[in-house]
């Protein structure tokens, strides 16, 4: 066998040896605990702070609004859909939640849109319907149809 090929083979054997060594030392402990991934990844992900605290948490303090909301068309919509994630606010009430009051916000869901189901989401033509009037002057977002 020519000398240069021999040397090259030695380099390849060394490389494969190093890779096997790295595989031995660097393979994460929980690898293949459940499948072809780090088992620890599951707990790491579940340990992350949840940013959305859910309506039940909001209702602990804002019970009257929560009660009102259960009677309206928005009852199935989580508070945080409009007000943003509440994880900071539940620890410190001085951190304000988002209180949207512009028509544009309502129109994200309620403007005429052939792709959305008309029977579930009421849709309007903003110019025709309100003639520039603010939506919240007539509709209470917590109980829009009463």
């Amino acid at each position, binding site marked *: 066998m*020519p*000398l*240069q*090929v021999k*040397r*090259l083979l030695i*380099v*390849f054997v060394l*490389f494969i040896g190093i*890779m096997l060594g*790295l*595989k031995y030392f*660097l*393979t*994460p402990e929980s*690898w293949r605990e459940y*499948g*072809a991934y*780090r088992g620890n990844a599951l707990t790491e992900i579940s340990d992350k702070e949840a*940013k959305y605290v859910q309506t039940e948490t909001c209702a602990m303090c804002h019970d009257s609004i929560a009660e009102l909301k259960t009677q309206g068309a928005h009852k199935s919509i989580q508070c*945080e*859909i*409009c007000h*943003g*994630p509440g994880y900071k606010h539940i620890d410190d009430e001085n951190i304000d939640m*988002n209180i*949207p009051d512009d028509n544009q*916000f309502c129109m*994200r869901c309620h403007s005429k*849109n052939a*792709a*959305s189901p008309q029977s579930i989401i009421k849709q309007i033509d903003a110019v025709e319907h309100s003639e520039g009037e603010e939506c919240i002057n007539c509709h209470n977002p917590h109980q829009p149809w009463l």
Partner: protein
Amino acid sequence: MNKYETLYEALANLDGYIYPNEIALNWDLLIVMYPYVTGLVAGAFILASLNRVFDIKALRPTYEISLLTALSFMLVATMPLITHLGQPWRFYEMLVTPHLTSAMAIFGFVYLWYLMVVLLLEIWFDYRYDMVIWSQQKKGFVKFVYKALTLWVSETSPESRKTDEKIGYFITVVGIPSAFLLHGYVGFIFGSIKANPWWSTVMMPVIFIFSAMVSGIALVMFIYMGVSYLRKQKPDMMALDTIAKYLFYILIIDFTLESLDQIHRIYEADESFDILKILVRGKLFFTFFIMQIGVGVLIPLTTLGFLQFKKPRERIRKIIYLIISICVLVGIFYMRWNVVIGGQLFSKSFYGFTSYKVDLIGGADVWLSVLWFIVPFFILAFLLWLLPPWKKNHEAMH
């Protein structure tokens, strides 16, 4: 990936009805760079093999430059992926935990095979004799570097050179399917995603291979002219004309395949067709019709086609080749953009769109993408200094 704190912020970027996990694009500009850079590697290598395996002698002056270009881009090919990872420091885990349950997990092996067994070996056997000679001529640290690169083998006998030549040839032959594997694999990653009608086609790996060849050839043409200019040498016009000829042929095949894919899609007009039609005519209009097809295909194709019948003066041809190579490189970049970004813009409900805007000022993805495109040129400059093709002993066999 854009992260939205509130739903309202996110909704401002949407049209129609889309699912919550489609609001923000998971694969951004860096993932556009990944198939782009990998394609340049495969294409540059194929150009080198045209000279070596298919014995196209006119391409001889670009042989080493093609190989070194392929190596320079190969060395950064993984970087767009690594820097896109949420946990970039864990990238090595893919290499130390081999498994066959995910197509993406195979990339490390495809990459290592191509880098270690094809590119490095071919360059090593091609330069071994010259490195031995240079190690005898140079002094100090550079001498040591060349010695180390030759693995302390100072054999220069005709037999040893014959062995280098034979093995080098064999590696190039193996290299061609390997280059196809490398970029076909990248195409497969997209083509095998059955939930996405913009990606899911068996044509994808083939289209990727041919578009890779087009971009790699254009890149070598650009670099060869650039290097000749910097060295104040006249580029070999015969070589440039031949590269342009092959660029023309492969561009025809590439365009035909891409058109076939689109015509098939249009004729089938399955349930996803309406949304794709709106996508291509709307959000992708500029990147698809103007950049990918206009700049990337029609301008180069008509110009190169014209050059097949009528040859203007050398000076004019050089300018044309320079412009064409840039057009093709830009066009193929937009082809990758249209695949990667385009495929994520529409909802799988087929009723809505999200949007993606490149953040030119504050976006890390833009700067990193530019970086991973520029770094290979510096690596190439270093490689051309270390292994200058113009100082090689060209009495070699091939």
